[in-house]
């Protein structure tokens, strides 16, 4: 009976694996298609976009991209903004998350509700006042202007708060017995414990910052301040999706490479982070 059940379970696992692989392939097909098109001549793609094998093959789309003198500048801008924003989000979210998880202060519940309410306000609703405020400060076309609107992230605070709440209180109590200050407890005990949560939040922030388009478009209006998404879009001709499809796809692959690399290196944390934010 047990052997029969384990046989069924084995087949069940295999079926599940087969379905998972199939779904993964289906998810991957558009990506393969994009890469294949990026390796085909534009003239060929104007006639047909069919096929996953890049024949005839060309690297011209990538060569044209790399020859542009402005591309390195856009990459550096994106890197500064993405790294800067990630660090700031981690600092703000971990401090605020710890405060909500462990500290008692007046109006804590009301402030928490206000913070969480931020999740319900769409970005577009605050876009114009935000833009005008930055204009009145004269800080558009700076890296700071690209980072600042995204530093206060309610979901980040919530994620960190959930993580800190799960840390046993005994650890803090032990530190308190040793006369550790509140900041020392946060810095020496809680932060090292929260590396998985910080890594996850950091990765999501970095990816969001790297892919962002709308705010950089209207804040960094000087071409020297373009981020890589806005910059690569700016070089497209009016009918790029017919006459320059290969170039568009090469831009897409090029712009997403850092994110793909990041994902490959840190995928363990990303998966854990998704599970953590969904399960808690």
């Amino acid at each position, binding site marked *: 009976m047990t052997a029969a059940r384990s046989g069924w379970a084995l087949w069940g696992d295999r079926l599940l694996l087969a379905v998972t692989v199939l779904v993964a392939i289906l998810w991957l097909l558009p990506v393969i298609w994009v890469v294949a098109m990026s390796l085909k001549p534009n*003239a060929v793609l*104007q*006639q*047909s*976009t069919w096929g996953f094998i890049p024949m005839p093959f060309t690297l011209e789309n990538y060569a*044209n991209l790399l*020859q*542009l*003198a402005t591309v390195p500048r856009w990459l550096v801008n994106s890197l500064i903004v993405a790294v800067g924003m990630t660090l700031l989000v981690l600092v703000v979210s971990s401090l605020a998350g710890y405060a909500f998880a462990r500290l008692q202060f007046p109006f804590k519940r009301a402030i928490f509700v206000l913070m969480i309410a931020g999740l319900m306000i769409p970005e577009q609703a605050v876009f114009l006042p935000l*833009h*005008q405020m930055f*204009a009145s400060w*004269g800080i*558009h*076309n700076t890296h700071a202007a690209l980072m600042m609107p995204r530093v206060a992230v309610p979901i980040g605070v919530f994620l960190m708060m959930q993580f800190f709440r799960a840390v046993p209180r005994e650890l803090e109590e032990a530190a308190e017995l040793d006369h550790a200050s509140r900041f020392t407890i946060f810095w020496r005990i809680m932060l090292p414990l929260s590396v998985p949560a910080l890594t996850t939040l950091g990765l999501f922030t970095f990816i969001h910052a790297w892919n962002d*388009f709308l705010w950089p*478009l*209207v*804040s960094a*209006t*000087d*071409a020297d301040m373009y981020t890589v998404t*806005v910059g690569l*879009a*700016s*070089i*497209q*001709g*009016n*009918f*790029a*999706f*017919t*006459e*320059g*499809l290969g170039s568009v796809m090469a831009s897409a692959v090029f712009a997403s490479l850092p994110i793909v690399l990041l994902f490959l290196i840190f995928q363990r944390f990303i998966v854990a982070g998704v599970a953590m934010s969904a399960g808690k």
Partner: protein
Amino acid sequence: MHRSKALAALALTTALTTGGAAGAAEIQLMRFFGDCQNDYGSVNDASEANGECGIITALVNEFNATNQGGHTVTVQTAEWGAYYDLLTATFQTGNIPDVAVMHSSVMPDFVSRDLLTPLGPLFQEAGIDTADFVPAALQNASANDEVYALPFDLHALLFHINVDLMEQAGFVNEDGTVRLPTSPEEFIEMGKQFEEATGQNFIAVESQSAEGMMVRFFNSLVWQQGSTTLADDGTSANLNGPEALAAATFIKQIYDEGLADPGLDYPGAEQAFLNGQAGIIINGTWVVDSYNAQAEGGSVPLQNYVATNVPALMGEEAVWADSHMWVIPRDESRAPEEQEAAVAFLTFLNDNNFEWSRTGHLSVRQSVIDSPEFAALPHRANISNTSQIARAVPTTQNQRSIYNAIMSDFNAMWLTGAEPQAALDSAQSQVERILRRANRGG
């Protein structure tokens, strides 16, 4: 004495030279059309360039290399879809360009907010003859009896034809010209004959709402009946009147009879036409040279290609057209010499309007249209009067929103089988709401 004269001459020369240098200005140009520095970055002769991006890049290079004032144009490109958001944002962020490209359909949004420099007096000083502009182009560039832009082209809707397929269907006359329908009934009848003879679709057209090609066709058909979809003063819409209903019913019939594939997007429609799977593609002037080059190159099944006007199917000749234009965005901090330099650049562009017309777009200057060099360009003889029959939508704010509203209701006709009257009523209601907001300044 002799020595002092020489010194005086030297001083005068120095003063004149430095005076000239002092007048030199850097002009910030913002535009779409893409970046093709790799191909045309060192081309200083516009006649050696091709395509929108190539020609405007070479024109800028040529101006920088040849202008007498020593001015330099610095180009900032932006993606077409996001261009107007970026341009609008510059009025807040501070780096307002000195010259910017603008569609005529968008200009009212900027004029109503007083964001453009009136150009009439500046054109007069610079010797730009506005009387040389074809009427539709001058109308596009004007608002409130003032000229706000240098029109650069008219880009109208055309019928692009695969002559071999039309011949197979028996629609080519003895003199080699293609026979086109003269009424909706004849159009449908010819379409059925065509499909029976060739096994291919009669029409290929973008039908998936990105471009709204069929809205442009619809506007053309309403104008052909002597009516209009928007009142000239931009205060009311007329989208569900009898003329609009006739046009919409005809368009729906094209799909219902299977004469066009409703599943095609813009690239799909192009692929169908280039691959010899459609007799006619309804598309703009901007593809004339591209299709011509591909047909001549022999790399696509399309071999024998002609471009013609949209035929008068419902009365008089009339066709939708928009314009690319150049404007000088208003900037109180702009120095007078920068404005002068910007006007000098516009003058140069106007003088070289023929080069731009090689893209396939229609020239806005009657003198260029009448010139032998323009007539010698491929297919231009067939469309030499397009500028005369071109019609622009009234200069109303929020035209893009109006266009998008009509587009989504129209798509319902062939994608979900909505009845023409229902689609038009819905469009009418949406457009009236947009106009109400525009007219109360919302």
